[in-house]
C-alpha cells in the first residue's frame, strides 16, 4: 500500500509534469494555485489526473477548501 509520503511525492511529480512547472518549485505546503499558476477549473483537471494515477474516484468536493499538496495527499490517502 502506498504511504502518505509516496502519495505526496507522486502528486508533486504529476503536478509538475502536467502543468510544466519545475519540480523544485513545488513544496508540500505550498499553495498550488499560486505555484502552478492555475485556477479552480484547472485544479479539477489535476484531480482527474490523480484519479487515473491512483485508480481511485475523487469527487470534486475533495478539493473544497484545499490549496496545498499535503492536504490533498491526505484526502487521497484516505481513499486508498
Amino acid at each position, binding site marked *: 500500500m502506498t504511504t502518505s509520503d509516496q502519495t505526496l511525492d507522486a502528486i508533486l511529480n504529476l503536478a509538475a509534469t502536467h502543468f510544466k512547472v519545475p519540480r523544485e518549485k513545488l513544496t508540500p505546503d505550498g*499553495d498550488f*494555485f499560486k505555484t502552478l499558476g492555475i*485556477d*479552480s*477549473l484547472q485544479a*479539477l*483537471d489535476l*484531480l*482527474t489526473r490523480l484519479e487515473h494515477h491512483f485508480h481511485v474516484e475523487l*469527487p*470534486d*468536493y475533495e478539493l*473544497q*477548501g484545499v*490549496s*496545498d499538496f499535503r492536504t490533498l495527499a491526505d484526502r487521497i490517502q484516505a481513499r486508498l
Partner: protein
Amino acid sequence: MLNLDQYNCLGEALRDAIECWPTETCLIESDRNKEKGRLTYSDFKDLALPLARALQDADFKPFDRAAIIMTNQSKWLVSAYAIFYTGCVVVPLDYKLTAAEHLQLLAHSQAKVLIVEYYLWRAIMQEPTFSNHKLKTVLVTDAPLKAELAGAFRWEDFRRRGDPAFVPRKREDTACIVYSSGTGGRPKGCVLTHENYLEQCKALTAWYPFWPGVRYLSILPTNHAIDFMVGFIGPFVCGACVVHLRTLRPEFVRDAFTRYKITYVSLVPMVLKNLERGLKAKFDELSPAKRFVLNRMIALNKALTREHPRVKLSRRLLGQVHQAFGGELLAMFTGGAFMEPSTLQFFYDLGLPVANGYGLTEAGTALTLNDFKPFRADTVGRPLPGVELRVLNPDSEGVGEVAVRSKTVMSHYLDDPELTAETIVDGWLVTGDLGKFDGHGHLQLFGRKKNMIVTEGGKNIYPEDIETVFDGLPVKECCVFAANYIWPEKSLGREMLVLVLRLENNQEFTGSLKEQIVACNRRLPDFKRVGGYCIWNQDFPRTASMKIKRNVLAEAVGQSMDRATAVAEL
C-alpha cells in the same frame, strides 16, 4: 409558459406547472459520463409531496425556514418545492462555505430545518460549535447506511404517505432568504418575496423564453440567485428541463453540451475563458488550409449577424463548432463579475452569443441584460421589463452610482433595519456600483463605490468578512480593502483585496512577518485571499467607538500612495 400574473406565490406556480406538463422531463442528473436519472414533472411531484408531508408531520409550520446546502442535483429542487408547498421559506446556502460559516448562517437565519449533503454534514458535525445549533430537523442526502448522523434523518427515508396540506402564500410574503455575503462581519440576508421572484421570472422569460424541450445546463450553484431563477423557477414554469452535472470538470461539461443538446447555460467568466482557451487550442491544431476556411466563415458570420443573431445561419456556416456545443445552443448568460469584451466578441462571432448582464442578489437576479439587438460586448445590456434604473450624482462624464426601483427588489436585509435603510432609500436600491447609460439605453459599468470585489468565479467578497483571519498579527493594526476602493479605477477589472498594515513604532517589515501574513491568508479559501499588502505610516482614523473610519483611511492611502508601487504581492 404559465401566466405568472395569476399567481401569488412560487408554490402555486410550480404546482400548476406540474399539472400542466406531467409527462415532460423536468430534471436530468448526470455524473461524469453516466446518467444517474431523469424525472418527469409527475415524478418530481411524487418525490416532493411525501417529503412535504413528512416535514409537516415533524412540526414544520408555515413561515418556518429550511436551509438547503447541496451541490446541484434533483434533490435540491425537490426539497425546495416541498418547502414552498408547505408555505415555508427556503434559505439556500453556498456549499463552498466552511462548516463554521454554515453554522453561523444557520444560526443567523434561524432555520428550523436543514437539508444537506452528507459530506457537508460530516464537516459540520466536526465543528467545535456544532452542539450549539438550534436545528429541529436535519435531512442528509446520500449518507452511507451505517454513517453516524448525530440525530439527522436520511433524506431518502424521510417521507410520509398521505397528502400534504398545500399552504398558499401572498405575494409580499418571504419566499427565500439569500445571503449576498457576510459570514465574517455582518451577514447580509436578503429577504426576497414571492413577488420578487414571479416578477423577475416574467421579465427574464420575456426576453429569453423557455418551453417544453428546452434544456438548461445548471452549472452555477443553485443557491445563487442566477441559477435559482434560470436553473429552476424559469424552466419549471415553462415546462422545460434542467440538466444537473455532479462534477464541473471541463471535459464532462463539454460532453454535457453534446449529449443533452443544451439550449441555455449560465457561466462565470472563469468557465467562459476556459471554453475560449479550449476552442482556440482546437483551432490552432487545424491545418493552415482549414484554418483559413474557418477564419473566413467566422468573418462571414460576424458580418451577417451584425444586427442580431441568426442562429440557423451560424449553425450552417460553422457547423462543427456548433456541433461541439450540441447544435441547439441559443445563448449563454453571464454577469456579476467582470467579463472581457474580447471573450464576448469571440463567442458572438462564432454564432454562440453570450448575453452579459448585471444584477445583484438584493434585486433578484438580473437588472439589465443584453438582448443582442444588436450585440454589444462593451455593456451589461438594457434594463429588463419592469426595472427602473437611474444614475445618482453623475460626474462630468455621466458616471454615478446605479440605483434601481423594481418589483424585483428585496424587501429588506434580515434583522438589519439600519443596513436596509442605508441600502433602500426612498424606494430606490442603491447598488454601490458605478455606471452610466449610453445613447442606446445600455448600461456600462465603471467600477464600484462599495468596498468589495467580485471574483472571476462570481463570488462577492467583502473585506470585513475576512479580516478576522489576520487578528493576532504582530503589527499595530491592519485592515483589508478592495484595491479599487482605495484606488478607484473606471473599470471592473483588476479586482483584488489588499491588506493595509500599520506597523509598531520602529518595527521593520521582515520576512518573518510576511510569512505570518501568508499563513493567515492561507486559512482562507483561495478565492477569498488578499492579493497584496501595503504599509501605512499613520495610525488608522477611528470613531469614538473605536471603529476604523474606512472611507477616510482609504481616501488617505489612495491619495498618498500609488497602487503600482505601494502594493506588494503576496
